[in-house]
């Protein structure tokens, strides 16, 4: 007669209720209806490359601007077999990346990696990995401002009309202003692109160095803006052209020094100040790329000596 209650007391005290057999949390944090709604938006986005699809963005356990859009998209497409990589400004070990990776480790239990080729799903903030993406990979961008014309035309009804009628003169007004003011196109990130010859799209604040990587990329590229409640996509092998003028064409950034750590001359470099006297160091922004290059060089070096 006492036995059941004793058992219940013992279970409550030790906290050994069987959570693995009956999980209290839904897989990947969002409920199934929300995931279905987001997947529908994603399908529409993939069907119309570059078109901003509205979706019912949910409250997430972190503030807007920290990647709520990207997390919702990732949560809607992730499966138990996926291998997740999260990067923030090219690095796998900055606060944003670490927290989002841990969030998905706890809510899905999927394997995570820092190696680009091993990942099936990559959530990114502000960079595209230097290692070329492959077919079957999915890259999810966190987008703060999905509307490329927002700063020149604040009325959203008007920008939607402009998209609908493909009237994109305004985008060139922005670039004209750059040249008039600085003598060259000074926009260095979130550089507007024309997707599949139809929609002008904000590529999220990636450096324009990464813009050419979006063109004909074999991976599926998904964009989520949580606060603005918009999802858009670039399907694999889609044309993505950066806008420009005939006499001031699109150009990517160049550096006159190689990476101080791995010696790469073809990667996006961050300038790091290393002491109080202003000593500077240029290093790869993509930490995984830099590390694997150094590991390869070491292996090759030790291989040749033996």
């Amino acid at each position, binding site marked *: 007669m006492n036995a059941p209650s004793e058992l219940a007391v013992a279970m409550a005290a030790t906290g050994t209720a069987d959570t693995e057999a009956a999980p209290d949390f839904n897989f990947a944090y969002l409920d199934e209806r929300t995931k279905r709604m987001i997947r529908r938006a994603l399908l529409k986005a993939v069907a119309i490359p570059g078109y901003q699809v509205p979706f019912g963005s949910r409250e997430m356990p972190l503030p807007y601007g920290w990647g709520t859009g990207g997390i919702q998209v990732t949560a809607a497409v992730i499966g138990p077999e996926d291998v997740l990589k999260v990067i923030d400004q090219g690095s796998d070990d900055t606060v944003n990346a670490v927290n989002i990776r841990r969030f998905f480790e706890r809510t899905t239990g999927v394997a995570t990696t820092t190696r680009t080729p091993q990942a099936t799903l990559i959530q990114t903030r502000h960079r595209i990995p230097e290692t070329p993406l492959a077919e079957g990979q999915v890259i999810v961008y966190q987008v703060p401002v999905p509307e490329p014309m927002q700063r020149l035309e604040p009325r959203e009804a008007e920008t939607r009309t402009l998209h609908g009628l493909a009237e994109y003169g305004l985008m*060139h*007004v922005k670039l*004209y202003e750059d040249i*008039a*003011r600085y003598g060259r196109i000074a926009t260095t990130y979130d550089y507007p692109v024309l997707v599949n010859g139809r929609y002008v799209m904000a590529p999220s604040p990636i450096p324009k160095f990464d813009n050419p990587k979006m063109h004909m990329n074999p991976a599926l590229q998904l964009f989520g803006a949580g606060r603005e409640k918009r999802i858009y996509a670039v399907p694999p092998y889609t044309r993505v052209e950066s806008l420009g003028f*005939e*006499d001031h064409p699109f150009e990517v950034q160049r550096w006159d020094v190689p990476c101080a750590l791995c010696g790469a001359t073809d990667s996006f470099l961050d300038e790091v100040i290393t002491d109080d006297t202003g000593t500077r160091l240029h290093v790869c922004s993509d930490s995984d790329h830099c590390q694997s290059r150094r590991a390869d060089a070491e292996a090759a070096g030790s291989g040749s000596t033996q």
Partner: protein
Amino acid sequence: MKSSSNAPPLLQVRGIGKRYGERVALQDAAFDLWPGEVLAVVGESGSGKSTLLNAVAARSRPDAGSVAFLGRDGVQHDVFALGEAQRRLLARTDWGFVHQDAAEGLRMDVSAGANVGERLMALGERHYGRLRATATEWLQRVEIDPARIDEAPRVFSGGMRQRLQIARNLVTRPRLVFMDEPTSGLDVSVQARLLDLLRQLTRQMQLAAIVVTHDLAVARLLAHRMLVMQRGRVVETGLTDQVLDDPQHPYTQLLVSSVLQP
């Protein structure tokens, strides 16, 4: 003014009517506009001038009536039957619209050069050097110092803003320009210069224009013909000199006699 007998007019307006709820703002307005002709619409405030202008310029849809525009292809197009894309294309190529408040017609935070070049960029011009040259030329034509090409209209005076607005509209060489009180809010000497400029440009470019104004002096200086409106109706039409010197309708007589003679 070339009113050749068999060619259709540039703009044919028939039976335009507009109500705001119970209030009749405009009733049965009709007129023809010929290429190169300047038509003034006068009347006191609330007489339906701006309603007429917005309806004719297809900026708001009237309840009744039709507006036919003679395209460059020589065919008359019913502007309300055009799709939105075509109407917008028309509005930024063959038409111009000069607002009373320049801030409505300009982008106040982008440079004068980009303001002038915007229409061209929208039409697909992608050469910075050519855009710049065109903008410089147009600033000169509207008597703005080309050295100020990179300044935003926010730092311009009222008269300069109005001239910049005109340049921005005329850069695509439209054939018809709508002007809503283009000179009000400017002081008299600036008004005189602007009127002079407008007269010169309309003549040089063979530009047809509809000018809404409450200032009879503007009508006399600019317009070939005029249309007097009262309570949403057109009460008198005719050649400008004829209407102003020999007004027939009692309201026109009142309007003409109300002008102060310095």
